[in-house]
């Protein structure tokens, strides 16, 4: 790097980080609101209504409440681990946003290994949950943490296997490259099975219902989060929403053509609109699933993964490879 490009590069880094933080908090706000409103619709009730128009300021008020709450540390908890866990969960959630291409130009960095970078960074969340559960010194938390590890490790396999099919077709790990390959046809139409497997796996990876076993409030009384209050709790929640956003972004990039859509003026920037639209459709789908289905049992969850998703994704990978060879 020479001296002339140092300052613009620094500014660029700063700008990207600020944007990533804005997206994380903005997404948490929007998702928190959408989740409540949609849950309200599904349950035939209005949802939040009191604070602001249609309860739009409810999240801000909740934020104030959560910041104001005392952060309790259980008596015999492993204090350093207990305190670091929410940060460990939340902080890595920022990083994938640096490589997600929202439009041809709106992207922090188009890494050649963008896809691997995201998967590597996101995997830290499992560790964070394990640390939270272990550090809490609570048996329910511990059970939740153990579940989380088994679940995330299991579902990462079909997820990666379906991902490999996409990589075989596109020949690149670059996210822009994968999107560019879908200019003519989105991969969801080429490999719908892979899309289904991938989406189910991402729902499980983000610990969302019906796969929310690490939390499981009716069995484990909130699992790994049982002992967390105030901001500790809300960091976990913010992380969950961010991981959902990242997971849906990945699904959109891999299968739904990324930012491709009907042409818009200044498409190099504005096509981000299509990207966000697709991501939020998927997020709303996740909300819908959550408020409809009961929770699966733990052995059923693992069986579903090992007996169905893994074999299917393996077969899918093989078929893709054979078809490409022909």
């Amino acid at each position, binding site marked *: 790097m020479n001296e002339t490009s140092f300052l613009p590069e620094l500014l660029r880094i700063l700008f990207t980080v600020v944007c990533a933080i804005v997206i994380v908090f903005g997404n948490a706000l929007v998702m928190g609101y959408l989740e409540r409103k949609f*849950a309200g619709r599904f349950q035939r009730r209005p949802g939040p209504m009191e604070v602001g128009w249609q309860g739009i300021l409810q999240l801000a008020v909740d934020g104030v409440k959560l910041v104001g709450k005392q952060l309790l540390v259980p008596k015999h908890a492993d204090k350093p681990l207990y305190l670091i866990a929410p940060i460990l969960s939340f902080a890595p959630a920022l990083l994938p946003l640096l490589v997600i291409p929202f439009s041809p130009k709106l992207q922090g960095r188009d890494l050649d290994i963008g896809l691997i970078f995201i998967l590597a960074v996101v995997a830290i969340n499992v560790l964070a949950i394990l640390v939270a559960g272990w550090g809490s010194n609570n*048996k329910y938390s511990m059970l939740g943490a153990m579940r989380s590890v088994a679940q995330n490790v299991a579902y990462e396999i079909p997820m990666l296997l379906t991902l490999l099919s996409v990589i075989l077709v596109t020949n690149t790990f670059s996210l822009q490259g994968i999107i560019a390959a879908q200019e003519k046809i989105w991969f969801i139409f080429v490999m719908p099975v892979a899309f289904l497997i991938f989406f189910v796996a991402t729902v499980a990876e983000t610990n969302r219902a019906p796969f929310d076993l690490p939390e499981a*409030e009716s069995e484990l009384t909130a699992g790994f989060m049982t002992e967390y209050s105030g901001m500790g709790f809300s960091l976990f929640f913010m992380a969950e929403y961010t991981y959902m956003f990242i997971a849906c972004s990945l699904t959109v990039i891999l299968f739904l053509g990324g930012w491709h859509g009907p042409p818009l003026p200044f498409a190099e920037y504005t096509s981000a609109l299509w990207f966000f639209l697709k991501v939020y459709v998927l997020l709303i789908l996740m909300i819908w699933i959550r408020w409809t289905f*009961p*929770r699966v049992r733990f052995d059923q969850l693992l069986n579903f993964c090992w007996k169905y998703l893994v074999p299917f994704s393996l077969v899918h990978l093989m078929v893709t490879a054979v078809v490409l060879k022909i």
Partner: protein
Amino acid sequence: MSTTPQSSEYRYVLNMGPQHPSTHGVLRVILEMEGEYIVDPQPVLGYGHRMHEKMAESRSWPGFLPNAARMDYLAALIYNHGYVGVVERLAGIEATPRAEYIRVITSELNRLQSHLLWLGVLVLDLGAFTPIMYTFEDREKILDILEDVTGSRLTYCYMRVGGVVRDIDDKFVARTREYIKWQRSRMPMYDKLVTGNIIFRKRVEGIGEFTPDLARRYGLTGPVLRAAGVPYDIRRAEPYSVYPEFDFEIPTETAGDCMAAYRVRVREIEQSLRILEQALDRLPEGPFRAKTPKKIKLPAGDASYAVESPRGELVYHLTGDGSEVPYRMKIRVPSFSNLSILPEVCSGMLLSDLCACMGSLDLVIPEIDR
């Protein structure tokens, strides 16, 4: 309570409750666990004990009536019914025909709202939050109807010896009919949303199975017993009030698992609607309360009166000694014996299955800890 020392180094003890979302009140279950598997579940009772039976011995028998409603807050009217029933039997008083019909109508409405709440709560225990909101919507309609006639929404104190406090009017009848129609229109939705849900079925089918023989040994009653194929229902087995006049079925299933208990209760909702319809059609004219002396002294001797609560057989046993205060009162509540089967069927199952199992037993802990 189990006092066995931990036999394996992998075993640990998990306290489920007294505050746990799936224990439905202040129930504590000490779980000896191995990983997520339950080796030995032991229920511990007594966290909500209020000495209702003892209170009956220290206050006049009409003064006990509000207590009856507070034992099982989901079947207050049926508890009312049992209590006035036992007093009437001991004192030799007969309620008027219209009063008996009103009692049956309000009791069945009470049973319906209990079953509806149970339906929502069972699915909530399995992790789905939405159905409970739908059942609450239905339940709200019943509570509105009952509030109009009884004056309260949960702990009703509506029945009196010889009849009821207030008569029902045409508005009540019309609203109840409207409700019956509404509830019938809702059942297909629950069928789709809950019964047909693949995750729900996988979670409850084959869970917590027991045989009719085991059920009898533990004194199980109500829908849980009928889920094992025993068509035992007090309304038929020991007919009381005007139940013999109605045409209704006692739904039974054979599997004896959580799904069977679920199916039995859902079918009971339909049967209750049938009873309501017939009772409204045949509602006789006349006084809603028999003429009784201002102060009734309970004669010496004892009497029992059994009613079918939403959870099973509820028996009041009252002993009088000729004074205004009962000598002794014993209440047999269904949840207590239904809960007692828990260690038997739940050993060796997963923690998540225990939630399903307790949900399907439809426990009301204040009833046990009376």
